[in-house]
């Protein structure tokens, strides 16, 4: 596992000419080549990355400031539309798809000089918690090749931990940034819903999807969020960023109230994780934080609500993959119906089909009220309960998942067990609140992490507190 300088420092060195963007890109590409056995990367954008690096180096030579991320290589989860290589969402149905436009997040990063060097593996269409649902390959945990890196942003998490690039991008619909960050051992931020534009990111469940950075440190995640966030005319659900931005953070915890979510500390929680968190709590108290127990009785319903709403939106969002305009198309079809059914039957993997079937069912007339509508009601209750909780505490703290990284194949034949991996991460998506994974310990030679949550739009104070936790760990 190789490391990089801090991102801000890299950009500084590129801008002052002491480092060249081209060298950084080449370093990143060669590390990617060396780490092939981890299956973290689906494709590299070598040609375009080198072109962009030369452009940045030329700019620096001409005396220009090339941005806050000048020459910094990064890796995007392969559900971000990017130039330079295919965008597949790790699904056969998008094999061969070359995006004619880029995600807004990518555009913003490029405008600050960042260079996308590769596309990371994921569970196809981000459906999963282990990256085993990729139609192409299984990514391996950087700490133990027999274990999963988590998912669905497993390739992105693994890439950062392996040092393939200074940062990567992930998407989080029910924990897909935070859980792999926890399994693989990096910082993973799911911002407030709407803070980062979803335009140009293959949609999973539109009302839950969030985009966020995966980095080695909280400070770096803050910098990337600062650049990617804000209102985007291409995404009507986006919101303005914090007027103070997200870089110079207040990480003083004195007088801050942190709630321990009772429902997350039940018997299903792994003892090692529990112990690590208890150690952290002692340090937090010493740092002046007030720790209180808090109960959110609605939480056990969150997973059920999630697995109704998410597949409903998935079934709708996947309708456009019909083999008629882009991606895979069954070319032996004799009529339209066969073209549709065969293209989709062959193009989609098992998990996508499972979610399409569940989603179609819960939206069907006669079942809509019993499932979708009721789930929406409970979701509203979850939002309210979190709002109320944040009236009494500044942050909520809990584990990210009940276990550390599990073995490859351990749950892949048991979809329900796999869904349970999301049990601690789905609620923030349903509530639209920001949540961040911070690694705090190593146990059994595997990372242990915590999840810190704050009220909607409190991303700035969340990142401040997260940095303190990082410091204390």
């Amino acid at each position, binding site marked *: 596992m190789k490391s990089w300088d801090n991102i801000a420092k890299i950009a500084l060195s590129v801008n002052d000419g002491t480092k060249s963007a081209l060298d950084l890109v080449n370093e990143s590409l060669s590390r990617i080549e060396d780490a092939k056995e981890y299956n973290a990367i689906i494709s590299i954008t070598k040609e375009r990355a080198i072109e962009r690096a030369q452009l940045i180096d030329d700019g620096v030579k001409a005396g220009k400031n090339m941005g806050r991320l000048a020459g910094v290589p990064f890796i995007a989860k392969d559900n971000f539309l990017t130039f330079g290589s295919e965008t597949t969402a790790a699904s056969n149905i998008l094999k061969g798809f070359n995006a004619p436009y880029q995600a807004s997040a990518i555009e913003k990063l490029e405008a600050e000089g960042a260079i996308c060097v590769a596309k990371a593996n994921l569970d196809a269409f981000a459906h999963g918690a282990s990256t085993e649902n990729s139609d192409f390959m299984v990514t391996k945990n950087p700490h133990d090749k027999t274990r999963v890196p988590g998912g669905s942003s497993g390739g992105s998490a693994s890439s950062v931990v392996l040092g393939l690039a200074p940062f990567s991008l992930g998407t989080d619909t029910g924990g897909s940034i935070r859980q792999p960050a926890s399994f693989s051992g990096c910082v993973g931020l799911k911002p407030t819903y709407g803070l980062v534009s979803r335009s*140009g990111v293959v949609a999973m469940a539109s009302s839950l999807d969030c985009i966020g950075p995966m980095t080695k440190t909280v400070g770096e995640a803050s910098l990337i969020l600062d650049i990617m966030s804000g209102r985007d005319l291409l995404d009507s659900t986006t919101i303005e960023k914090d007027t103070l931005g997200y870089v110079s953070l207040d990480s003083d915890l004195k007088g801050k109230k942190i709630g321990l979510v009772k429902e997350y500390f039940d018997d299903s929680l792994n003892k090692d994780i529990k112990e690590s968190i208890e150690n952290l709590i002692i340090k937090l108290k010493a740092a002046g934080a007030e720790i209180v127990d808090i109960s959110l009785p609605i939480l056990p319903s969150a997973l059920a609500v999630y697995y109704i709403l998410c597949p409903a939106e998935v079934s709708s969002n996947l309708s456009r993959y019909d083999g008629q305009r882009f991606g895979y198309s069954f070319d032996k079809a004799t009529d339209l119906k066969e073209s549709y059914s065969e293209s989709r039957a062959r193009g989609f993997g098992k998990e996508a089909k499972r979610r399409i079937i569940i989603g179609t069912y819960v939206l069907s007339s006669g079942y809509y009220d019993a499932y979708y509508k009721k789930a929406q009601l409970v979701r509203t209750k979850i939002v309210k309960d979190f709002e109320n909780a944040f009236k009494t505490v500044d942050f909520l703290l809990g584990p990210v998942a009940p276990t550390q990284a599990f073995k490859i194949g351990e749950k892949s034949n048991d979809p329900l067990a796999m869904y349970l991996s999301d049990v601690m991460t789905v609620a923030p998506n349903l509530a639209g609140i920001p949540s961040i994974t911070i690694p705090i310990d190593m146990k059994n030679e595997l990372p242990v992490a915590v999840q810190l949550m704050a009220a909607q739009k409190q991303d700035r104070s969340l990142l401040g507190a997260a940095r303190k936790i990082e410091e204390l760990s």
Partner: protein
Amino acid sequence: MTKVNKYLYKGYMPTIGIECHVQLKTKTKLFAGVDNDARDAAPNTLVSHICFGLPGSLPVLNSEALVLASRAGFALNSRPQNNSHFDRKHYFYPDLPKGYQITQFEAPIILGGKVSISVDGETKDIGITRAHLEEDAGKSSHEAGKDYSVVDLNRAGTPLLEIVSEPDIHSAAEAKAYATELHLLMLFADVSDANLYYGNMRFDVNVSVSKDDKLGTRSETKNLNSFRSVEKAVEYEIKRQVELLEKGEKIVQETRGFDDAKQRTFSQRTKEDANDYRYFPEPDLPPVTLSDEYIDSIEASMPKMPKVWRSSLSKAKLDHAQIELLLESEVESPTVSYLSVIKNYLDNPEKLKKISNWIINIEIPLRKNKPELKVLDDSTRASQYTEVYKLVEAGSLSSNGAQDLIIAILTSDTEISDISKYASEKGLSQNSNQDELSEIIADIIDNNMKAVEDFKAGEVKAIGFLVGQVMKASNGKANPGIAQKIIRDQINSL
């Protein structure tokens, strides 16, 4: 039923509801910044990543569509809702790129309303259930003899307002009248080009027949693009359904098409293969919220609607045909307004009638034949008409001369500021100068004593002959009324 029901067909009561899709004339599409006017565009040239349904593309609502939908709402005697939202309607078809249509299912922008129609001099209100915004699909073409179809996505994403009527219509004539009036309303509200040829308005008619108070099973005939086809499809459906029932057969709920050439409907699909659209709220778009201030400002910008015009123009004694001609002509050309000229005379029925006649008989046909005629602003034209009217009143312009003068003004290359001067320059003025006329008349009397004697003997026609002579001598410029008076005076004083 004790009263004779005029709607009954062979003892069956027809009930009709109409859904109309109106293409709104926004500059860009409903959810994408792409040109909305595809009339002259090559196929698939007005298509962005959003229209194409590419992965990662998101809809962005065009606020102009909200303005136009709100205006349409007022035209329908309704008021836009403060809160509405979009839903997704799912079905697979190659001209529907996303696999779902973004529409308003649960909470439409317009709820309630009514449209007044008039058939055979009887006026009645047709209720409006709702009107909602949605995106149009692309256009599929199936060429005969080819084993493939082609899709043009230029139309995909064009904003539509679907206007749903209550089942208040009971005859083919009423259906046609409703369609015609809806068309006029959309033109007056200025929300659509409303060109039926280009499919800017398309009608779906739901028809059922019944012998009792319970509604019968309905058929829906889709995509009618002319008033005549609306009328004929309803007529055909009523007849077809009654004949089936008379034979003891059942009506199946189905979607039908209309064959223009054969003037008949045909079955397209039955309810059994109907889609379950799986509606749910569109998560990519926030709910639509319109403030009262916003709605009020749109209401304030609404023009006077046909209903109001009809009432004030008929008070001014214009007849039905004239009024309808004026209303239709008003919306035919976007650059010329007749009603804004006429509105200046609402307090003077005589003047209004005269000037309306000029507009109906001269200006409207003239502009129809010569669309290249220059367009003067409404107030200039109003003051020109007023001037002409004054000249006629003063007797210095004959009715014939007035017509010629108006044609001259309308076809002149320059703007005429002094109408009176222009009339004399053109030789159109009438001579009402008593002294000049007296001299001419004295000569005529001297030279036509036979006629004078005849007149004295009671031959009334003789005076006409004498006036004719005066007109001839004055090159037609004498005011015939005044001339006649002077002739009588001079004969009496002989």
